């Protein structure tokens, strides 16, 4: 059984078909990348998996069960964590606080016990902090632990967002352009982290990325999309050499002759 499976998923915004009959399956323990030109529907697929959008037709299965009957906030509880293309952190809170929000799905206390701050809440809080510290250690975020997000540089925010997703301790991690806007060294760090997330933490990764160096370095399988349609699936080199993919990125000779 695949961890995540999309079956003939179609999404339309009015007359525009953003995702057209896309099917793919992400196996447990692999790094799966979605590539494609802008507007191909990659982020739209992410937003459907995290239930911000509901597909027009088709089904999305996670661990064999459809997630289309789940509300947006129930997705994290299933074990699907995500980051956002344009970073959606909680600006007026510290890095630590942001990452602790990631522990929300593991919350077992309720608002009454929390307002009284019973010993149980305190013990839970210790456990949450321990989990967050593991993510901080993993991503080398120690210098920024107490800093407010509002004052952090872009690259650090990107990493904090990844840390917050890891604090959920998910089974599936959705990374929406983890390397966009990062320098070459920072992108290399991201590549190492994705490898470790897969190998050490055993988390399956589904990512959208434009940087083909990063994609070919870390991903096991790649799916190329254009105009909402699947072009090719396979290993990074297979997809890169696929004629349909090359055409989508560079245009075809026929087209030029016609013009």
């Amino acid at each position, binding site marked *: 059984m695949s961890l995540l499976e999309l079956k003939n998923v179609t999404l339309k915004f009015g007359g525009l078909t953003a995702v057209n009959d896309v099917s793919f399956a992400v196996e447990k323990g692999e790094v799966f990348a979605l590539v494609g030109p802008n507007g191909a529907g990659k982020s739209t697929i992410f937003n459907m998996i995290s239930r911000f*959008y509901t597909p027009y037709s088709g089904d999305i299965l996670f661990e064999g069960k459809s997630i289309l009957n789940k509300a947006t*906030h129930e997705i994290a509880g299933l074990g699907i964590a995500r980051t*956002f293309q344009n970073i959606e952190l*909680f600006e007026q809170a510290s890095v630590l606080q942001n990452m602790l929000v990631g522990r*929300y799905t593991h919350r077992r206390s309720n*608002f009454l016990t929390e307002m009284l701050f019973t010993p149980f809440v305190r013990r839970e809080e*210790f456990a949450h902090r321990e989990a967050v510290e593991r993510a901080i250690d993993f991503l080398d975020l120690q210098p920024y632990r107490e800093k407010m997000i509002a004052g*952090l540089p872009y690259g650090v925010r990107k990493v904090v967002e990844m840390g917050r997703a890891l604090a959920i301790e998910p089974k599936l991690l959705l990374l929406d352009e983890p390397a966009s806007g990062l320098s070459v060294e920072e992108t290399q760090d991201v590549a190492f982290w994705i490898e470790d997330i897969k190998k050490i933490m055993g988390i399956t990764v589904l990512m959208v990325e434009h940087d083909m160096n990063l994609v070919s370095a870390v991903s096991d399988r790649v799916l190329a999309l254009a105009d909402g349609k699947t072009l090719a699936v396979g290993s990074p080199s297979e997809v890169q050499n696929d004629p349909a993919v090359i055409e989508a990125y560079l245009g075809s000779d026929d087209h030029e002759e016609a013009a």
Partner: protein
Amino acid sequence: MRIVFKTSYDADIRLFKHGAQAFWYAVLLALAIAAPFLLGSFLTGEATNVLIWAICGMGLMLLVGQSGQASLGHAAFMAIGAYSCVLLQTLAGLPFLLAFPLAGVITGIVGAIFALPVTRLHGIYLAIATIAVSIMMEDIIVLSEPITGGVNGLFAPDIEIFGLNFNRYSNPSGLYWLVLAIAVLVALVYRNMQRSPLGRSFAAVRDSEISAQAMGINVARTKALAFGLSCAITGLGGALMGYFATIFNHETFNIVISINLLLMIVIGGLGTIHGAFLGAIVIGFLPQAIAFSRDAIGEWTGIGSIVVPGLESGIFALILIGFILLEPMGMYGRWVKIRTYFELFPFARRDMFRRQKTYLKTERIR
């Protein structure tokens, strides 16, 4: 500046950052307890008033500062607290010790039910919806005269706990201590909320609803909870204000009170417990100061007592505009800046508190 070397998770969780901080808060509490002996009975009454405002302010602060929802209708919830508390005593015959917390619970439930449809609105639209509640509440009170006494108002019985009487006039110090104890308890609950997952879920909803949802937070439920808790605290404050006023009617909790509350937490400093108390001091003492200086100026110029309609509202408005323009972080924010300047002297820089603007925002989904 004191650098706290953290060796356990508890260092982050406990109420006070370090011993010295705990010491200064203990001194403050001791001074507050001793206040009735130092002040006369008039000033003790004024201090009680300030503390009641601070309780109401903490209620609204929880909503505005923590969960980022606006409300211009919190006087309505003060009214619900006051009326339900007094009516539980007079009609249902409950003792104050039961009626008071029950009044908070009732106000909280009403607030949460009200929030479920209304918090779908954002910003200015939410503010308008809450103004409507405040205006409607005045009419509801007048219309349901058989219970509420309508325009004639309601007479609050004396607060009695275990045979002890806390009448405002016969036992001003007692009432002051009672209100102080409630204020400290509310502040403690507020602090617990801030350091637990509950407070973080409020902050998450405030800063980004999209990623709050992606983190597993039910946004509608969290907003309703924030509204409910906020209204419960404000209801408790409203109940105390009812007892403090002895006799109250629909005008005691009119829209101006709502606006004063909001003004109070903005000039105090949004998102901090200190802000509620500092703002309450301003709101509590400013009318007296205005009246006093009006008389003084009248005497000095020889014109006699000058009466300018709307003078108080005008001055409040000017102060609010001044704060929003010059110090959006409020009085507490200014105090933190001054303290930092001296702690780091001479290394404090002007732009240490400047906030970095962000231009990137994920397009709103839905």
